[in-house]
């Protein structure tokens, strides 16, 4: 008997390496074999071989099937169905930051267009601006390929192959151990998995045995075969995987010919790598103290080389085509990874432009930095920890980069999924300890296994249930899987030696449940102490409040739990008895409903009465307009997905604790979620900074010496202040207006302006010149000050336009102009502008 599962391939990027390795991982836990069939391309593959899967050239929407044969085929089919439904659709790569380059041929900034030197255009693959001397590879072929070899006995060649595979794998592992970030480790792991792919090995051996060629030739022929399929796929991300294969092949061949898989390249000074391509291992072997930028003829946006460059913060432009080869080694080269441009031998004007750009990027970064460094708090300083929900070390790293005050929820289910047996204590220790190390003193809350429900883990043998959400899951399974829990708790205890680690128990309904976990933690801690193993004997153990019964048992629970965290998703589901994924009842699931808010309010008060701190982790924490409400509840911590952290922090920073409290009281008095939402929106609106000018939009000592530079400087002021989205496009709009007629209006004033969709907040920027600037050809009167007016396209209402009209009228009078010309500082000038506009 065989089981067949038919489906339409759901991942937009097609079956590339990541979904393929996930599919392989799902099958790896079963004894049955599985064949992947693509009915469109007619290709089939062993579902346990990533390479073979990728080679099926499966695209989004293709009709596919999985044929499963073996003893546990039913269970495997069930796991695959679940994987196809729940996990696979989410397996696409996160889209890279949208780029302004290449395909759209965005306008060049004026300073570059006017410079009169060729500007090479490519794809902005990794952001930032780099400057250095061009360095090119000495010889692309490395000499090795050219050497023709006579093949030995097939068994001899296969033995050589064994040695080369082992040495290359060892080199990859060694490099992974030295890796400076998680991305490098992940990519090296992906290379390792290609190397260990059964299909690759089998084909190379076949090649040796049936064609009688040497091992190096067999390696090249086989990888060439797969790379050819990938390149012919018509999918950019599959084509880029061909580079990984080629890279591995070169490493194998180097070893086979007696070299080392590792080849280090020393750079003399600040360098920009300019070549047709650069293999991931090539990038890793370059001296990174001096590698400032990368400019490639080939490559796209998602190759592993690009991903490595991004992780290391090295600006990179790809897709330059033949232009890359025309660069003379040793030339001064600027790589503009923001726009996808490369300039060789830049003249002074271009250098000045990029000095400005570099400075702007630095101030944008330090602005974010200052913000990230500041812990979450209300306007009057009441702390509200803004933490992150994560499921892996990679996500934890992103969380801290996004300014998380801690990890409020480390979901551990993913460590347990897609495998045959639970992860060992050591394996878990490595993950938790690494998270604690990254946290650098900030708390990391590790949630113990939340298996069951929608998170099946086959080897735990959990029964299929009619109603899994009300069934045998999470803490309820711990009695039956005591060893699994003990190993996890020991790993958490040991990780507590590396930072502020806490444990949190999911789905607690009664005090007995948390009491048992607590007792186990005590005995495990005693055991570790007896063996002299370092850990925090006072490890805080908390619990999630996601079952309504827990909300009404806080005094008893607080005797066992050191802290609480409200799991608002499940709590709301159980509270409203409505599945939020069931379209027909999901309208009943509404966390902003006053009834639910009353429940939350009672929980927070109850926890505080017992002297316990309490947080919230759930979708609700992600909604910036709800953040003041959550602060009003008195929550000590909000934990959410990383991308929302900065938004929530900035919203909190604009509201005082008493306003938050008043907002909550007003919400509790309402009758529907809609009314609460209206209140929240009104509050958010009243807090947004919509004044026309601020200290940040004014610079009293302009750096510019020309109209071109001044326009850019004005645009940059608004860009850094977050008031303008795409600065290049907005600058272009300003120039289009500037070209119809000069915007110098006499009195030594210029008034450039534009209306554009790139304007986020209607704004006025002001520059004052120490040395007056000529405002374009034919303008006789030099300009002493320039005001840039930025109006949002489709801005609702005329209110701001009216302010700007009245400001313009005031500029005709001497008094206002003199006030601006004599303003002692930026603050005062901005105040004058806002005031003039409001009269």
């Amino acid at each position, binding site marked *: 008997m065989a089981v067949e599962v038919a489906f339409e391939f759901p991942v937009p990027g097609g079956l590339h390496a990541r979904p393929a390795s996930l599919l392989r991982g799902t099958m790896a836990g079963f004894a049955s074999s599985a064949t992947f069939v693509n009915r469109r391309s007619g290709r089939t593959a062993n579902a346990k071989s990533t390479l073979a899967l990728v080679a099926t050239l499966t695209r989004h929407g293709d009709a596919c099937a999985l044929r499963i044969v073996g003893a546990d085929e039913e269970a495997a089919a069930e796991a695959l169905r679940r994987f196809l439904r729940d996990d696979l659709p989410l397996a696409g790569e996160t889209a890279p930051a949208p780029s302004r380059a290449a395909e759209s041929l965005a306008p060049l900034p004026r300073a570059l267009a006017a410079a009169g030197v060729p500007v090479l255009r490519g794809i902005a693959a990794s952001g930032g601006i780099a400057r250095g001397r061009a360095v090119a590879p000495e010889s692309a072929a490395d000499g090795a390929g050219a050497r023709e070899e006579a093949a030995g006995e097939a068994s001899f060649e296969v033995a050589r192959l064994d040695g080369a595979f082992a040495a290359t794998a060892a080199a990859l592992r060694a490099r992974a151990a030295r890796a400076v970030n998680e991305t490098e480790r992940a990519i090296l792991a992906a290379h390792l998995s290609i190397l260990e792919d059964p299909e690759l090995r089998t084909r190379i051996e076949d090649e040796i045995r049936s064609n009688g060629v040497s091992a190096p030739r067999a390696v090249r022929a086989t990888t060439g075969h797969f790379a050819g399929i990938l390149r012919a796929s018509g999918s950019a991300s599959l084509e880029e995987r061909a580079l990984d294969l080629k890279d591995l092949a070169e490493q194998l061949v180097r070893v086979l010919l007696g070299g080392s898989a590792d080849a280090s390249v020393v750079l003399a000074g600040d360098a920009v790598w300019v070549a047709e391509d650069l293999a991931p291992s090539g990038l890793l072997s370059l001296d990174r103290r001096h590698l400032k930028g990368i400019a490639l003829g080939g490559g796209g946006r998602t190759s592993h080389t690009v991903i490595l460059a991004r992780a290391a913060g090295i600006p990179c432009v790809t897709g330059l085509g033949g232009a890359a080869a025309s660069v003379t080694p040793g030339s001064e080269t600027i790589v503009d990874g923001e726009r996808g441009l490369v300039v060789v031998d830049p003249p002074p004007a271009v250098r000045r432009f990029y000095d400005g750009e570099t400075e702007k990027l630095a101030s944008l970064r330090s602005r974010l930095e200052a913000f990230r460094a500041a812990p979450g708090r209300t306007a009057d300083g009441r702390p509200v920890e803004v933490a992150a929900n994560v499921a892996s070390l990679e996500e934890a790293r992103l969380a801290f980069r996004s300014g998380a005050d801690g990890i409020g929820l480390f979901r551990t289910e993913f460590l347990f999924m897609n495998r045959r047996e639970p992860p060992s204590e050591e394996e878990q220790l490595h993950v938790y300890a690494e998270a604690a190390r990254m946290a650098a003193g900030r708390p990391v809350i590790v949630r113990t296994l939340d298996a069951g429900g929608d998170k099946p883990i086959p080897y735990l043998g959990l029964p299929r249930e009619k109603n899994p959400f009300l069934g045998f899951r999470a803490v309820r399974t711990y009695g039956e899987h005591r060893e699994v829990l003990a190993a996890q708790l020991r790993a958490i205890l040991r990780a507590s030696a590396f930072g502020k680690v806490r444990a949190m128990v999911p789905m607690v309904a009664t005090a007995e449940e948390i009491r048992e976990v607590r007792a186990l933690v005590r005995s495990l801690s005693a055991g570790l102490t007896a063996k002299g193993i370092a850990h925090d004997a006072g490890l805080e153990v908390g619990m999630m409040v996601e079952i309504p019964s827990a909300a009404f048992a806080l005094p008893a629970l607080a005797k066992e739990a050191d802290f609480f965290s409200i799991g608002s998703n499940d709590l709301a589901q159980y509270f409203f008895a409505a599945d939020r994924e069931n379209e027909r009842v999901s309208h009943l699931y509404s966390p902003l409903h006053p009834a639910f808010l009353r429940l939350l309010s009672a929980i927070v008060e109850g926890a505080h009465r017992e002297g316990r701190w309490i947080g919230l982790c759930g979708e609700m924490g992600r909604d910036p307009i709800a953040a003041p409400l959550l602060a009003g509840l008195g929550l000590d911590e909000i934990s959410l997905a990383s991308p929302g952290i900065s938004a929530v922090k900035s919203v909190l920073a604009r509201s005082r604790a008493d306003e938050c409290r008043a907002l909550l009281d007003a919400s509790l008095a309402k009758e529907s979620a809609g009314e609460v939402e209206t209140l929240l929106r009104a509050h958010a609106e009243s807090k947004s900074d919509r004044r026309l000018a601020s200290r940040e939009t004014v610079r009293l000592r302009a750096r510019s010496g020309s109209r071109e530079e001044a326009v850019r400087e004005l645009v940059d002021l608004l860009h850094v202040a977050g008031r303008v989205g795409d600065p290049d496009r907005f600058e272009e709009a300003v120039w289009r*207006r500037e070209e*119809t*007629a*000069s*915007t*110098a*209006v*006499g*009195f030594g004033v210029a*008034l450039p*302006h*534009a*209306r554009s969709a790139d304007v986020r907040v209607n704004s006025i920027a002001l520059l004052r010149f120490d040395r007056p600037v000529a405002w374009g050809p034919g303008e006789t009167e030099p300009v002493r000050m320039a005001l840039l*007016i930025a*109006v949002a396209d489709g801005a609702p209402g*005329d209110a701001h*336009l*009216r302010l*700007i*009209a*009245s*400001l*313009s*009228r*005031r*500029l*005709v*009078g001497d008094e206002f102009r003199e006030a601006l010309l004599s303003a002692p500082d930026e603050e005062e000038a901005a105040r004058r502008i806002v005031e003039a506009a409001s009269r």
Partner: protein
Amino acid sequence: MKLVAVTACPTGIAHTYMAAESLEKAAKKLGHAIRVETQGAMGIENALSDDDVEGADAVLLAAGIPVRGRERFEGKRVVEVSVQEAIRNAEKILSGLAG
């Protein structure tokens, strides 16, 4: 002297209003009566009435773009200048009209 004027510019954000202000200031200084219609981003404001146009000794158009409702001024003495001119040299323009 009684004058009417229309100001307008390509984006209608700033110059339209500066020119209006400039003309009004200069007229006051020189002792002329003036009504200025602005055709800007907020639409037509301070629209000239038929009586305004009827009673005016001259019409001044300060616009970088075609003025809307130009037919209203047929048969009148119409003087056209650029918006920049109106902002910078309003007094000179008005003196010229009177002379």
